[in-house]
C-alpha cells in the first residue's frame, strides 16, 4: 500500500524507564493509509513504543520520522499538529465535559470552525446514539460509546496517522464491536492506523499487516493471515522458546 517513503519511520528506537528497557532497538514503518497492528502480551513494550511516537516519552535511542520530518525534540502538544493522533489506553475522555465538548477539544489545533462542525455532524450521522447525547457529560456514556467518542475525538484533528492503544481493553465484546465499527468506518479514507492490541483476533480482522511484540522487540511480522497460520505465533506471543528477534523490519 505504501509507495515511496513511508508515512512513519521508526529506526532503532529504545525506551527506558531508569535501568529497565521497555523498548529495545525497534524498527517500524507505516505507509500512508496502511493499517498496522502490533500485538503482544502485557508488558511487551507496545504502549511505550506508542508513547515514544506520540511525544509522551522521549526515546533513549533511535529516530522517529513522520512524513519525512524528524520528531526529535517536538513537544507533546505539537505532535498532533504534525498529523499524529493518539487514543490512549483507558480512553481518557473528559468525563465532566459533554460529548460535544470532548469532540471540540479534538479539533483544538484546527482553525476551520465550519469544517469542524461538518466533521462532527458527519460523525453524529454515522453514530446517532452519540448525536442524541451530545449535550450530556461524556462520563455517562457506556464504555463502548466512550471508546467511539475517544476515537472520533482523535479523528477530529484530521490526522494522517491514528494510533490506538488497546481499544478493546476492559470492554465487553459488544462494546468492542462498537469501537471497531468506528475504525472500519475510516478504513480506506486514507488515514493510516497503528493499532496496539492484546486481542490479536480483533486486530488481525482489521489490519493490513501485523507485528508481534515481546520483550521490547518485534519477534514476528507479516500479514494477519500469515501470522495466524504461523507455527511460531503462539510461542512468539507468549514468549516461549523464541528463536529469532527483530523479525518486524
Amino acid at each position, binding site marked *: 500500500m505504501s509507495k515511496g517513503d513511508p508515512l512513519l519511520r521508526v529506526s532503532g528506537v529504545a525506551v527506558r524507564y531508569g535501568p529497565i528497557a521497555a523498548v529495545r532497538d525497534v524498527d517500524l514503518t507505516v505507509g500512508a493509509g496502511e493499517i498496522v497492528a502490533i500485538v503482544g502480551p502485557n508488558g511487551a513494550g507496545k504502549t511505550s513504543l506508542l508513547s515514544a511516537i*506520540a511525544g*509522551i516519552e522521549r526515546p533513549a535511542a533511535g529516530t522517529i520520522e513522520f512524513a519525512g520530518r524528524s520528531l526529535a525534540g517536538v513537544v*507533546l*502538544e*505539537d*505532535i*498532533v*499538529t504534525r498529523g499524529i493522533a*493518539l487514543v*490512549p489506553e483507558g480512553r*481518557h475522555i*473528559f*468525563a*465532566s*465535559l459533554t460529548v460535544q*465538548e470532548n469532540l*471540540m*477539544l*479534538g479539533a*483544538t*489545533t484546527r482553525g476551520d470552525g465550519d469544517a469542524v462542525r461538518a466533521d462532527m455532524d458527519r460523525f453524529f450521522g454515522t453514530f446517532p446514539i452519540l448525536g442524541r447525547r451530545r449535550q450530556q*457529560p461524556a*462520563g455517562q456514556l457506556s464504555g463502548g460509546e466512550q471508546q467511539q467518542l475517544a476515537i472520533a*475525538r482523535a479523528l477530529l*484533528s484530521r490526522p494522517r496517522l491514528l494510533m490506538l492503544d488497546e481499544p478493546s481493553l476492559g470492554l465487553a465484546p459488544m462494546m468492542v464491536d462498537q469501537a471497531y465499527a468506528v475504525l472500519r468506518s475510516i478504513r480506506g479514507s486514507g488515514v493510516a492506523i497503528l493499532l496496539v492490541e492484546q486481542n490479536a483476533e480483533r486486530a488481525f480482522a482489521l489490519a493490513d499487516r501485523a507485528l508481534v511484540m515481546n520483550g521490547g522487540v518485534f519477534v514476528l511480522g507479516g500479514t494477519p493471515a500469515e501470522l495466524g497460520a504461523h507455527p511460531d505465533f503462539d510461542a512468539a506471543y507468549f514468549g516461549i522458546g523464541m528463536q529469532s528477534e527483530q523479525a518486524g523490519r
Partner: protein
Amino acid sequence: MIDRIIQTLVDALSVGGLYALTALGIGLIFGVMRLINFAHGELIMVTGYALLAAFALPLPLVLLFGFLAAIVLALVTERVAFRPLRNANPATLLISSFAVSFLLQKTLILFVDSRPKGIDFLPALGRQIEVVGVRLQILQLVIIAVSVVLLAALTWFLRATAVGLQMRAAAEDFRMARVLGVRANRVIAIAFALSGILAATVSCLVVAQTGIVQPRMGAQLVIIAFVGTVIGGLGSLTGAALGGFLVGAATILLQALLPPDLRVFREAFVFVAVTLVILFRPQGLIPARGLRERV
C-alpha cells in the same frame, strides 16, 4: 428590626462575596496545576501597595496599576517558582507556594514597611444610601455586585470560550489535553493571569473597605478562603465559590446571631462547622467529578 436583618444579610453577602472571589482564584490554579497557591494572598497584597504607590494618579490609572501589579506578579511567580516544579508532587508545590508567600511578604517588610499604612481609597463608596427604607453602605452593594458580575464573567469564560474549554479539560486530565494539542504553558499562564485579576479585584474592595494596606492583608484572606475551597470541594470551581461564600457569610451571621459573650468565639464555631463538613463529606460539598473518576 427588619433593617437589622437586611443590614446583616448585606454584610454576609458582601463578606461572602469577597471570600468567594478569593477562593475562586485559589481554585482556578488548583484545577490546572494541583497547586494550592498560598502566594495568592501576596497578589492581593501587591495590589494594595500598588494602589498606595500610584495613589496620586487619576483613578483609572491607579486601578490599572493595581491590576497590572497582581497580574504581572502572578505570571512571574508561575514562571519562576512553579513552572520548574510542574511535574513535582503537590506537597512540593505547596511548600514552594509558602516560600513565595513568605519571600514576598518579607521583601515588602524589608523594603517598604511592616506597619499598616492608611489609604483613603474610593472614599465616595463609604457613603450610605437608603434602599427601601434601609440605610446601606454603597461599598457593600458594590462588593456584592462586583462579586456577582465576576462570577458570571468567569462562568461565561469557562463555558463559552475555546480557552475556557481547554482549561476545564486541562483541569480534568492535563496530559490528555496536551495530546490533543492544548498548550500547557498558555493555559496555565492564563489561569494565573485570571487569578491575578481576581486577587486585584478583592484587594481593591478590601482596601476601600478597611482603608488599610499591610503586608499580611492577603494571607489572612487566603487562609479562610482556602478553608472554603476545601469544604466546597477542591478542584471544583463552583464548590470553591460556594465554600468561600459560606465561610465568609457564616462568620458574619454568627457575629449577629450569637449571644454577645460568645461572639469572640465565632471563628471557633465556623471551624467546628468546617470540621463537620469535612468529616461527613470529605470530598467537599460539590466534589470535582474529574478528580473522583481519576482515583
